[in-house]
């Protein structure tokens, strides 16, 4: 049935590589003490996520993920880090408080992860009987210009307002040379 030897193994390996890239990137993003490294972790996480989108039959979203997150969001955050200070400040509170807050955060994270994992593995998810279209870029474009045209226009308006607001906020307080 397959023309290439061990292709199932290779596909599984690429899938696991995407998963591990995403997980490691997310861990780097929250655990490193320098902010520039955590931005790089976010970029690595988004590259892994793009691989997962590809496996979810959506190469369009994989491309958009890399274009928007790695290309725009991470670069913008890097600009902000260059303009502001770069490092996490030294902890000024006592050691007991730090351990207490860390324990609380870890407990919350573990509880959320465990609960959601249990729910998602136990529930019987339904599978669709027949697909309406193939989910290709052509189908996405047709849906964007017919069913979702109002939302499409509104999001362009939201982006315009966001850019104007960002300019207006960052402009105040700037001293003339």
């Amino acid at each position, binding site marked *: 049935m397959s023309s290439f030897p061990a292709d199932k193994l290779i596909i599984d390996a690429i899938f696991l590589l995407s998963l591990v890239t995403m997980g490691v990137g997310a861990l780097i993003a929250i655990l490193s003490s320098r902010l520039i490294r955590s931005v790089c972790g976010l970029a690595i996480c988004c590259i892994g996520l793009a691989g997962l989108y590809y496996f979810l039959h959506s190469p369009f979203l994989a491309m958009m993920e890399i274009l928007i997150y790695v290309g725009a969001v991470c670069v*913008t955050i890097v600009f902000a880090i260059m303009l502001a200070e770069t490092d996490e400040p030294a902890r000024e509170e006592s050691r007991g408080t730090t351990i207490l807050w860390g324990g609380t955060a870890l407990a919350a994270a573990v509880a959320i992860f465990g609960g959601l994992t249990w729910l998602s593995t136990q529930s019987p998810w339904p599978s669709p009987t027949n*697909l309406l279209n193939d989910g290709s870029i052509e189908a996405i474009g047709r849906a964007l210009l017919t069913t979702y045209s109002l939302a499409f226009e509104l999001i362009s308006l939201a982006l315009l307002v966001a850019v104007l607001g960002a300019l207006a906020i960052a402009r105040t307080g700037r001293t003339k040379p």
Partner: protein
Amino acid sequence: MNNPALHDRLDLYLVAGAFLLAVGIFGLIRRRTLIGMLISGELIFSAASLNLMAFNRFTVQDPTVGQIFVLFIMGLAAAEVAIALSIIIAVYRNYRSVNSRGLSELNG
């Protein structure tokens, strides 16, 4: 086929999304700078997008809905980052710091 391949299992994607959400919330509590909290928020956005795409692939009849929804999420996340970073720059001009503990002027 009784035992599907790894990339055809819904629960793996859902567990990955839960992991991203948990990591994002952990970072949101732990980080003490505004930019670090913003990065954790981006991770939570990514978790939501991954969940939507997984359900779109496995349980929905029309496979374009989830893709368009995730596209809108990405657009709104980009807008949110632009606004949040300009606020961070303004805060840094006023306080010379982006440490979230120091921003207590409105504290009652």
